[in-house]
């Protein structure tokens, strides 16, 4: 697999008004201000999130790490404006989110592809739904598909693909419009270990070249540490920020970095946090 890098320019070039310049930080800051969430279904009240305060800098890569059911997906949906929080608010680039935020790319846990469109058209639907002519993005779509190993699969239907290939299509769809903010909810969850590792490497390359602000939700400790500038460790439900751990490992996080003692020590530190919370028990 080649990297995402070759696909990083918009087809019409990076002139003024056509998109963010290649060298500038493309991201926007995201501010979580006392975000809490309570779900009421029937007579049952579920406290999903407890007062989340978090400041994500422009161009920062933040991993939100927590056990299943800790409300991390809810947190992402709140940030994307898909769910209104019970308390608090999220602002993106200084604007309070009140309803679906569209200047972003999302990748969900499941691929969420449209069964009636082939791989290429599933990617391009991102633009069609935005009212943008997809023709100008075809080359970029092909380049991105190539970079995730889907070369030659552009005209396949989702049902013809494996789960991993579908998810990679979804990732390309989340990136095709070059968003300043990327939200990924356990995007590699359905991938096999080898593809997962390659996707992590590719995602870092992509992020290094564009510096879009990235919220990466995961329950993989080493995945979070390997990717993020900061790892936000969540407690079990109701999800609350347990600790924020800065990861000052050098980039790119190549094999030497991943196998370094500092990397292992950071992972151990997080494991111990989860042991303290009873998430991991020996």
């Amino acid at each position, binding site marked *: 697999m080649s990297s995402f890098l070759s696909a990083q320019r918009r087809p019409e070039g990076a002139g003024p008004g056509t998109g963010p310049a290649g060298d500038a930080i493309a991201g926007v800051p995201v501010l979580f201000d006392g975000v809490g969430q309570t779900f009421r279904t029937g007579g049952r009240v579920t406290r999903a999130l407890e007062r989340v305060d978090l400041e994500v800098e422009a161009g920062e890569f933040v991993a939100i790490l927590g056990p299943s059911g800790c409300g991390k997906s809810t947190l992402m*949906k709140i940030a*994307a404006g*898909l769910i209104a929080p019970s308390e608090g608010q999220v602002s993106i680039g200084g604007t309070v989110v009140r309803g*679906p*935020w*569209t200047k*972003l*790319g*999302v990748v*969900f846990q*499941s691929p*969420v592809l*449209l*069964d*009636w469109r082939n791989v290429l058209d599933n990617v391009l*639907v*991102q633009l*069609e*739904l*935005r*009212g943008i002519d997809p023709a100008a993005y075809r080359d970029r779509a092909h380049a991105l598909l190539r970079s995730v*190993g889907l070369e*030659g699969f552009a005209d396949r*239907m989702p*049902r*013809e*693909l*494996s789960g*991993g*290939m579908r998810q990679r299509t979804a990732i390309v769809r989340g990136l095709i419009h070059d968003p300043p903010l990327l939200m990924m909810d356990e995007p590699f969850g359905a991938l*096999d270990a080898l*593809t997962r590792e390659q996707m992590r490497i590719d995602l870092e390359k992509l992020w290094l070249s564009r510096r879009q602000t990235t919220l990466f939700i995961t329950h993989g400790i080493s995945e979070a540490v390997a990717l993020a500038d900061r790892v936000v460790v969540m407690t079990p439900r109701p999800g609350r920020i347990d600790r924020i751990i800065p990861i000052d490992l050098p980039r790119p996080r190549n094999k030497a970095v991943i196998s370094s003692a500092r990397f292992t020590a950071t992972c151990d530190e997080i494991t111990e946090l989860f042991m303290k919370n009873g998430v991991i028990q020996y």
Partner: protein
Amino acid sequence: MPTAKGDAASGSGRFAAWLRRRIGLILVFVALFLLWEYAVKIFGIKEYLLPPPTRIWTEFLKRWPTVMAGAWITGQEIVGGYLLAVVVSIPLALAVVRWRFVEESLYPVIVFLQIIPKIAIAPLFIIWFGFGFGPKLLIVFLLCFFPIVVSSVAGFKSLDPDVMDFARTTGAGGLRLFLKIRLPQALPGIFTGLKVGAALAATAAVVAEFVASDRGLGYLLQQYNGQLETPMVFATIVLLSIMGLVVYYAVEWLERLVIPWHVSQRPNDVTGI
């Protein structure tokens, strides 16, 4: 990663495959006909009780112009009533999904009316609208209408919440969202209703003709029955069945054409890693 594309089966190859798959069915049919033919002859069963298949065929060949003229009338009732149902039900289903007050006021009434045995209303239609083509069309329409409305409403409502979440992050709304997401997602449900309706259309036309008519296959069926012309009764039934099948398979063919992604969702289609 696999890159080889599966070779599309050629037309003749597909037919051979179909033949292989259906060979059992074809043999059963042939065996049944042979059994019927010879059982009737061996046991000396009276023709007005059960004529042998060859007798039905020869009788049909003798009198086909009358039967075909009836089929032409009945066919018009089937197709006309069905198309009328399609044209009315799908927009109505859209209105139910689009406007809450339609769903809360009109839709419950429609669902309630569905409980009335439509065939029982047929005599009333004769009183109201007479013996002509109109009341037959209306009865076919009435029988096809409900399943199409109900399935289409269900189709338009069966939105994948994750897909809708994705769509919302793009800011798409109105017509664009409808054409690119909601309509394609609803099509499998709509076609379910269209197929149920198609299966009912022929029955509806014949029942309408039974009640009061001076033409059409339903009328002929009654005539032949009254005169104990059993071979012609059989011939008419076979012709009616064929017409019903043609309508049903036309809809199914359209379904394959419009939503191949849904029709061919079979687990053995999965390729890849």
